[in-house]
């Protein structure tokens, strides 16, 4: 295990190509200078971070991979590729012929020119101290590249696992989808239960003109993992981004997401289904930036919280002066299933153009007593009635997830989460 010191940073930076070193240096500088997250900052409101970053260490070598998730792999049929990163180290990559899915370290060495415009183009080192640590100390990750015009019918599966106690895992996913290309990616986050660790994954996606990428994230970190993920997705003219996240794991799991609609006609669809239990905090900070004409976006997230869990959604749609004729919508609906649970939903709009359509809606409510009464009048006891209502609540968002093959799996996980809530607290 390596401590988060200047010496470790120097070792890590030496493995990067010359052109990437300044970003690592900026990371280390920010890591040394930035204060820890403070709940008084809007960015960290509602969240207790309780992480002493400086006490964590990097895994010098990966632990053994977790057992394969047979159900997930089965649902995906034959993925076009499969990469596994454990404790920050990419340990296995398989890809069908002609599919460019590789470990990031070797790709940087072999194909620096292709990566140059993408690698570390995403979340910056000064975003917060977690991002700074990632830039300073991350060594490896996965690179997925769809060259111009390449269209994949099957998705690739990328697994980010963390296994070592008291470690800081820093996996990175870099995705380049060139003009006219299209593909889909499933990103699965996992760690064993009961192992305290921190994960700071970063994902950067660059989508070219008339290109399309669908990303499905299945967040199933273990119950002692604190995860602070940063993800950026950028689309050029008429490019299309889809991000769907199912949030289930972690004691404290954040997804900081920024989507840049940079080219005219670019479109983003963001979907989310999350379900917190026990003392989890599921924390979403989503930023949708319309920076060109005729850009369109739709965010649709649904979440439930039980036991003493907490969820946070803060969403911002920002339409720049260049974003005339844009159309943006943001919806967040929450079910609160126990008195000790809370859901915070804070949608925001910043509109700097005058010819736009833009809207947002957010709800936080308990289960509907009318539905419960109706279902019980058909002989269903209250537990069965509520379970059906919870299942129904998530149905429309699951139906919009891009990988239809994942739908039954995710539905099962969400309903199982409801079944596992402490009975005496649910109502």
């Amino acid at each position, binding site marked *: 295990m390596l401590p988060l010191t200047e010496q470790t940073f120097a070792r890590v930076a030496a493995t990067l190509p010359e052109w990437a070193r300044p970003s690592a240096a900026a990371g280390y500088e920010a890591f040394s200078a930035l204060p820890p997250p403070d709940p008084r900052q809007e960015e960290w409101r509602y969240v207790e971070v309780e992480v002493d970053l400086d006490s964590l260490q990097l895994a010098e070598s990966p632990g053994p991979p977790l057992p394969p998730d047979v159900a997930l792999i089965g649902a995906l049929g034959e993925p076009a590729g499969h990469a596994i990163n454990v404790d920050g180290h990419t340990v296995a990559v398989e890809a069908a012929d002609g599919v460019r899915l590789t470990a990031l370290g070797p790709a940087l060495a072999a194909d620096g020119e292709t990566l140059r415009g993408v690698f570390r183009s995403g979340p910056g080192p000064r975003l917060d101290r977690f991002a700074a640590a990632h830039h300073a100390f991350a060594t490896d990750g996965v690179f997925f590249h769809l060259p111009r015009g390449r269209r994949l019918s099957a998705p690739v599966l990328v697994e980010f696992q963390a296994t070592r106690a008291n470690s800081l895992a820093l996996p990175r996913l870099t995705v380049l989808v060139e003009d006219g290309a299209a593909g889909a990616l499933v990103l699965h986050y996992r760690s064993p239960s009961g192992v305290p660790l921190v994960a700071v994954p970063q994902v950067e996606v660059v989508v070219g003109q008339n290109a399309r990428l669908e990303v499905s994230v299945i967040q199933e970190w273990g119950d002692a993992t604190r995860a602070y993920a940063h993800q950026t997705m950028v689309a050029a003219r008429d490019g299309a981004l889809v991000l769907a996240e199912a949030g289930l794991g972690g004691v404290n799991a954040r997804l900081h997401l920024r989507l840049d609609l940079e080219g005219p006609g670019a479109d983003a669809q963001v979907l989310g289904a999350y379900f917190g239990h026990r003392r989890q905090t599921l924390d979403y900070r989503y930023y949708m930036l319309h920076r060109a004409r005729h850009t369109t976006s739709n965010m649709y997230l649904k979440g439930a919280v039980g036991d003493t869990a907490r969820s946070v959604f803060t969403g911002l749609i920002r339409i720049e002066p260049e974003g005339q004729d844009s159309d943006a919508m943001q919806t967040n609906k929450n079910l609160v299933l126990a008195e000790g649970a809370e859901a915070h939903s804070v949608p925001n709009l910043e509109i700097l153009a005058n010819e736009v359509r833009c809207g947002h809606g957010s709800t936080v409510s308990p289960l509907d*007593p009318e539905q419960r009464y109706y279902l019980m*009048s058909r*002989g269903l006891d*209250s537990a069965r009635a509520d379970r*059906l*209502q919870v299942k129904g609540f998530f*149905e429309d968002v699951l139906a919009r997830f891009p990988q239809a093959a994942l739908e039954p799996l995710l539905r099962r996980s969400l309903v199982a989460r409801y079944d596992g809530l402490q009975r005496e607290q649910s109502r």
Partner: protein
Amino acid sequence: MSAALVVRGLQASLGDLAILKGVDLEVPYGEVHALMGPNGSGKSTLCHVLMGQPEYTASGSALVGGTEVLGLPVDARARAGLFLGFQYPVEVPGVTLRELLEEMGQAAGAGAGYWSTVEAAAERMALAPFLGRPVNEGLSGGEKKRSEMLQLLALRPRVAVLDEIDSGLDIDAVREVAAAVEAMRSPDLGVLLITHYSRILRYIAVDRVHVMAAGRVIRSGGKELAGALEAGGYDAMVREAEPAAPPAADDFLQGL
């Protein structure tokens, strides 16, 4: 054999507002009864008090197939054999009619033949295309009522209370619903039709008619009672039954 439904001295209130003031009613097995009354007389309240909607406080007695249901949870009343067809069936987003019917079968511990019976009934009632759609979402008034009838058939209750089964329906749909009620008639079932208008009674041979006003059943009689109502209206019958009865509005004021 006792009657399918026996209601004695049923009182119910919503907060401080007394709505039912001692309802007595009996529906024997094999019979179809109509319960009529003006708006605000307590017909719908009676339905929901029998079913056990939690907002009401009730006292008295309601026996379903000999089981006292007052005090039981809603689902236990359904299992005792009570079915309520809702005037406004509730939409259940994201849950298909098929899923609901399957859950109902499981909750009732239904046997192996359950699903084929339900499917055949859905076919017969032209509801097969609705099995895969969310419960009551985007259905017309008539479709909702048919969906309620399908659920009734699936549950095979002892007592079916059908709340305003004919409201908001065009004449063809009323005929359809009436035919469905006639088809249900069986020695194991008592039916109580709640209706504001006598229209549906032209198509159903009801055994008895009860008239409700101000929280009580004020008259019971044969089918001719519906004819008398049609001719004279509710007001005349209410005045005749209780000349000294205060106007219904007073109860409302007292409740404030």
